[in-house]
């Protein structure tokens, strides 16, 4: 894997650009927006394809229903709004009008996790992926960088069924080069680094943190495997089980509540197929607060140092159990 040397960009920008690209080649692509197009970046699509852009105002539940109706007529609607509004405000509509009928609706949200920062808890979507995971038929993805977001949007457009893609408000470092776009597959995790002592499974904005943690661990003689679990559902269970059997110790990292998100998903798989010591890094079932995103990560236990500590702790438990 090559790491590109470019200035960080928010993954919501990747969404905006990718939507325009697929909109140019496929007339079935439509966008339904809930009044925040400049923020979600669907404004780009609005500029290029105004006849296929529908702003329904501050009305997310209606947005989901409208998208379901559009999908039922053979078009491919992308709904854009913020994570907390799509997953929670419109939760039942997603379940009933999108997931249950397997409507070909793609819900692409911005402001996932703690990235809304200063806006505060009401706008921080920190339980969204877990909620979407609990609904049958939903595919749930959180790309880690601009390039992977574009790849995910292209893949979602090709996939026949409901998809939830979570983007970030803040700029993210580039981890992938363009060449991954053709190789990207929904549900197939990416092993970014090999290592035999501990497996760090991360998603979205936490993938770069996991890589930094792995470098720090290497400095003290611990070799960490790092897995980019960009698709939370369907989870790549085989890679999780392999990682557990190979390392015997697993840490999960997510900008999300530790309940029902990546940590839970991995815990479920390990408990049923390969029980090994495990630690979950994420929000410890708490709301955060207003503040800059980096400071919130540090305060709420999502810093690189927290990942390093968790890895050491879980390796320690592994050693003691031998």
């Amino acid at each position, binding site marked *: 894997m090559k790491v590109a040397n470019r200035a960080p960009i928010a993954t919501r920008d990747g969404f905006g650009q990718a939507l325009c690209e697929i909109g140019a080649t496929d007339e079935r692509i439509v966008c339904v927006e809930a009044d*925040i*197009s400049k923020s979600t970046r669907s404004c780009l699509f609005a500029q290029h394809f105004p006849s296929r852009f529908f702003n*329904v105002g*501050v*009305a997310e539940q209606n947005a989901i229903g409208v998208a379901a109706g559009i999908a039922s007529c053979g078009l491919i609607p992308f709904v854009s709004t913020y994570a*907390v509004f799509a997953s929670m405000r419109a939760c039942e509509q997603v379940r009933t009008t999108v997931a249950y009928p397997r409507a070909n609706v793609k819900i692409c949200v911005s402001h996932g996790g703690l990235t809304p920062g*200063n*806006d505060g808890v*009401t706008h921080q979507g920190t339980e969204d992926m877990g909620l979407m995971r609990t609904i049958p038929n939903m595919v749930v993805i959180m790309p880690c960088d601009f390039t992977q977001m574009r790849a995910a949007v292209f893949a979602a457009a090709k996939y026949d069924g409901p998809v939830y893609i979570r983007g970030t408000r803040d700029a993210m470092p580039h981890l992938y080069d363009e060449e991954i776009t053709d190789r990207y597959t929904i549900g197939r995790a990416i092993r970014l680094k090999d290592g035999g002592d501990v497996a760090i499974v991360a998603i979205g904005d936490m993938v770069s943190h996991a890589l930094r943690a792995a470098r720090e661990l290497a400095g003290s003689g611990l070799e960490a495997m790092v897995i980019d679990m960009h698709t939370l559902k369907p989870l790549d269970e085989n890679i999780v089980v392999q990682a557990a059997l190979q390392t015997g110790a697993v840490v999960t990292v997510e900008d999300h509540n530790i309940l029902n998100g990546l940590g839970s998903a991995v815990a479920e798989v390990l408990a049923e197929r390969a029980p090994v010591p495990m630690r979950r890094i994420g929000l410890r079932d708490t709301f955060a607060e*207003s503040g800059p995103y980096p400071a919130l990560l540090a305060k709420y236990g999502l810093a690189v140092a927290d990942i390093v500590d968790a890895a050491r702790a879980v390796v320690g438990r592994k050693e003691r159990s031998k």
Partner: protein
Amino acid sequence: MEQGIRRTIAYAAQMRYDVVRMIENVKSGHPGGSLSCVDILACLYFDVMRICPDEPDWPGRDRFVLSKGHAAPALYAALARRGYFPATELGKLRQIGGILEGHPDHNHTPGVDATTGCLGEGLSIGIGMALAARLDHADYYVYVVLGDGETNEGQIWEAAQVGAHYGLGHLVVFLDLNNLQFDGTLDEVLRPWDLSAKWKTFGWDVQDIDGHDHRQILRAVSKAKNRKNRPHMVICQTTKGKGAPVMENQCAWHSIVNLQQMNDCLPKLAQEIRRYEDILNAADVW
């Protein structure tokens, strides 16, 4: 000018300065929608509302719900100047460890009666409070400020029906009608048609006023209090960004467009405060 109105106008001037200053300071927030409702809040907090800053939880107090929660800076300015907490806290808006969250949080800030921020919910909370007052045979009033784009949300209309059904005469709701939402004008995004007629049809007592004219605001509250058996909707024609010419009537100033431009507004806003130094004796240009 009557002394009462001069007082509310003075505090509105102070609050305008505070709003622009605190958002510029943290480089984050919603200036346009905060400024458009300053006059409504100034009238409520410095004339209308029966409240006690030393006892924020006094059960007999009037309640206030900022349903358009992103206008939190305006509310915080009102609360600070009214004495709920030191004005120095305004400099810590949206900062980690501070008491002023990005959107109003009942558990974080003295004087905030309800946690809001996700549009469409505050009116329902206000209705709950009004029903509680009725149950307790209490005579406090409940005031709510709604955003105009916020009325896109279905929950607003669910709440509207209940308010009228229960004849909540102690509920007074102000609609901050600045005609701009995030993605454009109301007509461009989701045409509202005749808002006045809509609320009347939902069973509310409706008044239409200039939302920056303190005399009209205070008279509207007075009229509302004389009409007992229906909830009250006061539709306030306002200007987004009112008081800061570069922001006025500009959709983009829902959020911050240009920090330097914000900073450039401050001297004139400070100058406006100095006109009322006989009233704003605790005021400061911070």
